[in-house]
């Protein structure tokens, strides 16, 4: 029925597949199987062309980054300053966004595809060394990638004079130490350099200009790179034939929560809608126990929430952004009508407050403060003033308009993505996003939990001048 015991969670379905094409084989992670199913053909095809031709192919394919921001990979590769060497490829395998577990499957089931993708990227973008950073908790992925890399070295696909050409690249494996923020590219680079995983400010530390060891660095997601062998072997036309013009190809989505059949799906990009995904027979087959849908998170725990009004939106970044959220890492978390919304918001906020690296004050202090207030509210010890305070504290992390979904029931218009932020990276805002979504779309559920506050007398404070 499209599921395989060796790929738990994966549901194949009757759809075009690009990155999961080998998942049906139990031994898909071995070099033998990989070669028997067209493996390293993309690399051969790429090496027969000039690097700039391969780069043009990737540009023409409009392959969008799958890490969260959805930036076109071909454009990203072109951002490195000319004539500065060495330059590096860093593979972001630190998949840790809540609800996301697609890259882990790609690394466990098809590590050679990732390695081949790395090699093609290095060839096309002139990168001399590749650092493959895998999340610390993913033991099987680490094992499989390491074994595959050994086999690939032994078979001459990695190292010096690859396939007899004068192209050579080394791939260095690195395991993370378990920090969510290291999924952020500059924090990942810090971690790779041996420092505390803390983001760097962009500007000036755009990795393409000043990245790993201060050198130009391309950071790509595992899924993004796993698409390259197909594009190189079959050409960009074969890739853009799937999906829409602005969102071509397929993408991996991971659905969790209150659906009949949660799992990882490779879906056609740009045309598949959330309704298809959540209710389709070939996908999640509707809500569990026939309940109603209450809300869903469309793009990983840090994405603003959607409600049933947004079900007919397709997987298309711009449309989802205009509707007030993001596609992010492709993790959909579904909440049915039995969900306790304040508790759900607390669960997510607690995660982001815990995962703050401690660098930026709004995230370090604000995230925990939000969590504390929510804890009070959920425990029934909050006041109506606390609900406003949540929004006030949140606005110290995200000043200005917060994106949220439209709701016909509440008469709410959508506020488009993104938000403004006072922090360097998205961890801080991510602690506030669930609070804001929940309070905007389900305020009555909070109000029934809290007691009305007594009116406060505000004593005016006269500001004195001076500075340090």
């Amino acid at each position, binding site marked *: 029925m499209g599921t395989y015991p060796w790929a738990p969670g994966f549901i194949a379905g009757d759809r075009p597949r690009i990155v999961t094409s080998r998942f049906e084989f139990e031994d898909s992670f071995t070099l033998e199987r990989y070669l028997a199913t067209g493996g390293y053909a993309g690399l051969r095809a790429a090496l027969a062309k000039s690097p700039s031709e391969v780069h043009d192919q990737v540009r023409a394919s409009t392959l969008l980054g799958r890490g969260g921001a959805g930036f076109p990979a071909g454009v990203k590769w072109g951002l490195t300053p000319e004539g500065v060497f060495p330059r590096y490829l860093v593979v972001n395998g630190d998949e840790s966004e809540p609800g996301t577990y697609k890259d882990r499957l790609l690394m466990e089931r098809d590590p050679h595809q990732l390695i081949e993708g790395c090699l093609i990227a290095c060839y096309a973008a002139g990168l001399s060394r590749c650092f493959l950073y895998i999340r610390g908790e993913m033991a099987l992925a680490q094992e499989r990638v390491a074994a595959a890399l050994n086999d690939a070295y032994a078979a001459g696909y990695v190292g010096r004079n690859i396939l007899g050409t004068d192209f050579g690249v080394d791939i260095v494996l690195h395991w993370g130490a378990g920090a969510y923020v290291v999924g952020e590219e500059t924090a990942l680079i810090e971690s790779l350099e041996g420092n505390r995983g803390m983001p760097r400010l962009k500007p000036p530390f755009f990795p393409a200009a000043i990245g790993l060891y201060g050198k130009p660095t391309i950071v790509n997601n595992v899924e993004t790179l796993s698409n390259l062998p197909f594009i190189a072997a079959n050409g960009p036309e074969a890739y853009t034939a799937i999906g829409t013009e602005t969102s071509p190809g397929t993408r991996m989505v991971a659905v969790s929560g209150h659906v009949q059949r949660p799992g990882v799906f490779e879906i056609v990009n740009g045309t598949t809608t959330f309704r298809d995904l959540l209710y389709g027979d070939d996908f999640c087959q509707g809500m569990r126990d026939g309940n109603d849908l209450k809300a869903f998170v469309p793009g990983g725990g840090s994405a603003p929430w959607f409600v049933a009004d947004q079900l007919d939106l397709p997987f298309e970044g711009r449309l989802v952004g205009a509707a007030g959220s993001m596609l992010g890492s492709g993790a959909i978390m579904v909440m049915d009508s039995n969900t306790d919304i304040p508790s759900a918001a607390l669960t997510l906020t607690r995660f982001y407050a815990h995962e703050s690296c401690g660098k930026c004050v709004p995230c370090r202090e604000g995230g925990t403060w939000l969590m504390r207030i929510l804890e009070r509210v959920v425990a029934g010890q909050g006041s109506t003033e606390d609900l406003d305070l949540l929004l006030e504290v949140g606005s*110290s992390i995200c000043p200005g308009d917060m994106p949220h979904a439209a709701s016909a029931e509440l008469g709410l218009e959508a506020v488009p993505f993104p938000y*403004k932020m006072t922090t360097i990276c998205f961890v801080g805002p991510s602690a506030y996003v669930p609070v804001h979504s929940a309070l905007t779309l389900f305020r009555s559920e909070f109000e029934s939990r809290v007691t009305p506050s007594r009116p406060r007398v505000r004593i005016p404070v006269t500001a004195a001048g001076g500075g340090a």
Partner: protein
Amino acid sequence: MSEAVEITINGRTVSASKGELVIAAAERAGEYIPRFCYHPRMSSVGMCRQCLVEIDTGRGPMLQPSCMVPVAPGMAVDTESETTKRAQEGILELLLANHPLDCPVCDKGGECPLQDQAFSHGPGESRYVEQKRNYEKPIPISELVFLDRERCILCDRCTRFADEVAGDALIHFIDRGNATQVNTYPDEPFSSYFSGNTVQICPVGALTASPYRFKARPWDLEQVDSTCTSCSVGCRISVHSSRDRVLRFQGVDDDDVNWGWLCDRGRFNFESIHSEGRLAEPHVRTADGLTSTGWNSALQVAAGLISDAIARSGPASVGLIGGARGTNEDAWAWAALCDALGVTRRDPQLGDGLPASILGLPRASIADAAAASTVILLGPDLKQELPVLHLRLRDAAVSKRTRIIEFTSTGSGLTAHAWRSIRHAPGTVADSVAATLADPDVAAQLAAGPVVVVAGRADLAESPAFTMAALDRILSAVPAATVLPALRRGNVVGALSHGLAPSTTTDTATAILRDAAEGRLEVLILLGADPLVDHPDADLARRALAGAGRVIAVDGHLSTSTREADVVLPAAIMGEKSGTTANLEGRVSRVEQKVTVHGTARPDWMIAVELASMLGHDLGVGSVEEISARLPVGVGGIVTVAAPASAEAPAPSVPLGGYDLRLIVSRVLYDSAVSTVESPSLAGLASGAGLLLHPLDLERLGVPTGSAVRVTGPRGSVVMSVCADDRLQRQTAWAPFAQPSTDGVSGDIREVIDAGVAVTDVRIERL
């Protein structure tokens, strides 16, 4: 200023220089942007987010940290917009969320950037009602610094300073998120020579220094800008006092000299101003030993001793050692007194420096050195002797402006940053220099741009002639090179330049002491000098003080040598007197009196003037201002008085041989110097006496590390405990100079040094 860039700040057009950060450009334009983590002398991290302002670079206004964004043409900055104000208020509320607000008992209260900016840019009240973070209240992170993690706002200033500026990354963030804290590594204290700077730059009361804790409130402090004279770098300081007691020094940012930094010895040895060892009144030796007396009688006795000596044996029978601890005015007055008496034997150094002729060489400034393409280090470990010069050169090397070529016997704090670190045994540095200059890579580097030689006395067990010979070689190979004299004593350059330099080699301190030891000196004047502790040749110093007819000591403290004197005249010390001082560049800067002098002590110059008048000479001055007016160079200028040429013969190299070990003795920051010993906070920091050898030499000698050995040299022998250190070269042994015996075993290494021997070879026997 480099290329100008025009930006608008709050609608006003402002000119900034290319690469300047928005926060700095705004401050120059009079728009203060609140900040905590930003520090102009360190790299920006954008950590506290307090300096967020709206910046429009053509894509609409965006909230950006102004400490991270360099100015760009056409940029519009709004520091007062509603969004900016909202963001800044929000950050301040969050910063205060977990702050304990124990301001009433916090030393920082009243001068606290968090307090000030909470008033100027904060929301005025807090809505935080949750439990605040709790940590053990202050924990000592070193002998000098306490850390209160509850007050800490995690701005990364101290940790950045320790890592970037000092190079002692001994404090760091540990744990993550809301539980992040600054701390040391387990069981490894923050034992940095520069730890006091972290206290000064801490924007809250999280870091406090033990000498100042709970001593005063900032609004009770009086302050005056002055100059630190602990060493010859001449860091600018602000002297803070309350109720006539000096309570702390703070570094003042001087672009030419110290960039705001101080070393801990300079920062904390103000304690010696008020120490118990201060001399309050004159003393004269009687049958009962040193007996206190009045100024008049003490001066009469002193004058009588001098005039008798001159009448009996001529002015050559009087010698003066010291003067480097005083002001330029003090030096001038004592030189004038000597001139009036015909006394030519004077030396402000104590056989531990270089010949005064080094001041006649083309002079470099600190800024020259920090901007040179090559700096040649031919001297001591600057981290130990001239710590803030070390910081300036470290910065030059780390930021890749300057390549350092180092000639050293032991390695130094700059070895890790040196382009070339070349080892030599004592007595062979000139050969080492010659061989290095012959290297084509080195020659190309020296031809690439300005070259500055930092020259000082690296080894007190070796004749300074070797260093001078090496310096000659460098200057003849690179004629355009300039020299920064790394002489150590506070105002040694001022003293040498204002008349206290020895005119011939027979007038040096060592020569004077030798004559005294042989009974040829009738009167020895110690002007703030302590040869019993400070001269490399302990035996010579001892015999000199015993053999000199009479000893007149002018000193602020009752030092070891002062105890042996016949007349003791109490002197005002830094903090108690005004005048000028010259640092190693020759740069003249003010020192200011902040507190009343101790007891009846008088400034050195006044003692000289009064002695002169008792001896029938009128120096023609009655105030420090009158002397200042006579000095050739005023404040801000560089003293360039040509010092007399050295007549010392260049020494030939002394090759190493036999079973001997060649002894290296050099200073470390904390030693038995009186200002350190008399400062309770610093007194315990000396490493203690001992001897280090290469581990293979220890093995060869069959001596286990930590055991006691007998060290025998040209002068005598001493028992030392010995340890292995693989940074040393084979066949050398290193001992720190003037250290107390903290292990109960080790004696004073100076006992084996003979000032008349070119190098000190020692033998080691197991006990």
